[in-house]
């Protein structure tokens, strides 16, 4: 591909007098999440495309249900608005390509009354290049990179798929992750394999993103033991609570294990696989337990049926992240059982980009 001749951007251009006028243009058209946006100029959008070696019309994917094509130019406009720098854009583009895989069920997850957000988990060297921080405050405003990448996912949903509250987005409550929900794994401070490697990406320096249709994090605390089984029992209990109070059905759960608890589990020689197998066995309830929480009407004659929170141990996403102190952890439940599945994709893998041989 000869990038010396750049195809022009084709989006409609608006002329505004200043920064404030740009804000009013975007807010009044329903093109924001309510927060100010960075005005997407041609130069800023082109810089994102140049960084990712993409032409404006490059197809990132086609949303399977409404058959909406998503191009690199349109995605880059939304990334700039979110505050992304060019080096953030390949992550946004890869996350969107992953979200458009059939198994993610993008339309269902973003239109549902259930109100999940797209959780983006970043692995690999790219985390360090962009300054993503998987330590202090990992699930919130930990750093610039994860804040703007997560926000770009939402702005693009709003503007490219019309996922606006009351429009395609029929969410009853939602959660704050719908502004931005992106974390980086703390790979430097763990003996565990990165999530991307556990999920099949080569362990050769390939960076990757994992996307998951995720509810809000449920924080747990257990600083009174060093026994991995007791620590993980607390995580499993929170998953059982989610099964009772929200959805009984199995799906992809993520658990985030910060350093303090992680070191106890690692020190006992437990791998992520060991964790997943233990949690798979412990996170399950009988349908009859619904009666304990006001849902007796739907127990019917299946009270003794057992429902696992995970369809298999493979469905647990174990993430090493969080600040160095505190016996805390988080359980991030799926939107609705296995109707959606987490998707992991390598960043920057381009079949057209191999240089000519010979």
């Amino acid at each position, binding site marked *: 591909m000869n990038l010396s001749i750049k195809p022009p951007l084709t989006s409609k251009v608006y002329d505004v007098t200043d920064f404030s006028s740009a804000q009013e243009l975007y807010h009044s058209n329903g093109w924001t999440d309510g927060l100010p946006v960075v005005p997407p100029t041609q130069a800023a959008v082109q810089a994102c495309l140049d960084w990712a070696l993409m032409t404006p019309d490059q197809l990132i994917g086609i949303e399977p249900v409404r058959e909406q094509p998503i191009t690199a130019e349109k995605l880059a406009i939304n990334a700039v608005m979110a505050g992304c720098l060019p080096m953030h854009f390949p992550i946004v583009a890869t996350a969107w390509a992953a979200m458009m895989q059939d198994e993610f069920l993008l339309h269902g997850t973003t239109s549902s009354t259930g109100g999940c957000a797209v959780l983006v988990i970043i692995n690999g060297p790219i985390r360090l290049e962009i300054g993503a921080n998987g330590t202090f405050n990992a699930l919130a405003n930990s750093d610039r990179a994860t804040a703007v990448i997560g926000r770009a996912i939402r702005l693009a949903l709003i503007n490219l798929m019309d996922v606006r509250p009351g429009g395609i987005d029929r969410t009853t409550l939602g959660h704050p992750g719908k502004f931005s929900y992106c974390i980086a794994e703390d790979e430097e401070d763990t003996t565990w394999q990165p999530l991307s490697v556990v999920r099949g990406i080569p362990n050769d320096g390939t960076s990757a993103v994992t996307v998951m249709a995720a509810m809000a994090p449920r924080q747990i605390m257990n600083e009174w033991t060093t026994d991995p089984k007791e620590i993980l029992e607390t995580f499993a209990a929170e998953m059982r609570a989610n099964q009772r109070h929200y959805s009984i059905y199995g799906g992809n759960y993520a658990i985030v294990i910060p350093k303090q608890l992680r070191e106890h589990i690692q020190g006992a020689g437990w791998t992520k696989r060991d964790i997943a197998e233990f949690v798979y066995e412990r996170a399950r309830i009988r349908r009859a337990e619904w009666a304990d929480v006001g849902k007796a009407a739907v127990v019917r004659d299946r009270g003794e049926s057992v429902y696992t929170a995970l369809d298999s141990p493979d469905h647990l996403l174990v993430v090493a992240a969080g600040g160095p102190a505190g016996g805390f952890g988080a359980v991030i439940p799926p939107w*609705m059982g296995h109707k959606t599945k987490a998707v992991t994709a390598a960043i920057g893998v381009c079949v057209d980009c191999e240089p000519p041989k010979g």
Partner: protein
Amino acid sequence: MIHVLDPTNEMKAAGIAQAARPSSLAGKTVGFISNGKEGTKAYFGHLDRMLREELGVAEVVWRTKSNYSAPADAHIVAEINNWHAVVTGVGD
């Protein structure tokens, strides 16, 4: 002056033309495609009675999607050809 770009998807997906509207439902077959949620049972039950008793619909066919958040299953979509009208898109 700042030149800024339209963030919306100007390249819209090809739309689907609406089917012709029937002038009357009398003697016709109407299909229901339910998402299977609890609250739809009473809704469709009431609508079934209204269609038969007030509008003279001959037959009401009930179908339920296997995944309430995904498009209807292919075999259900194929059945639509046998119906004169279909009611779907009902939420919770």
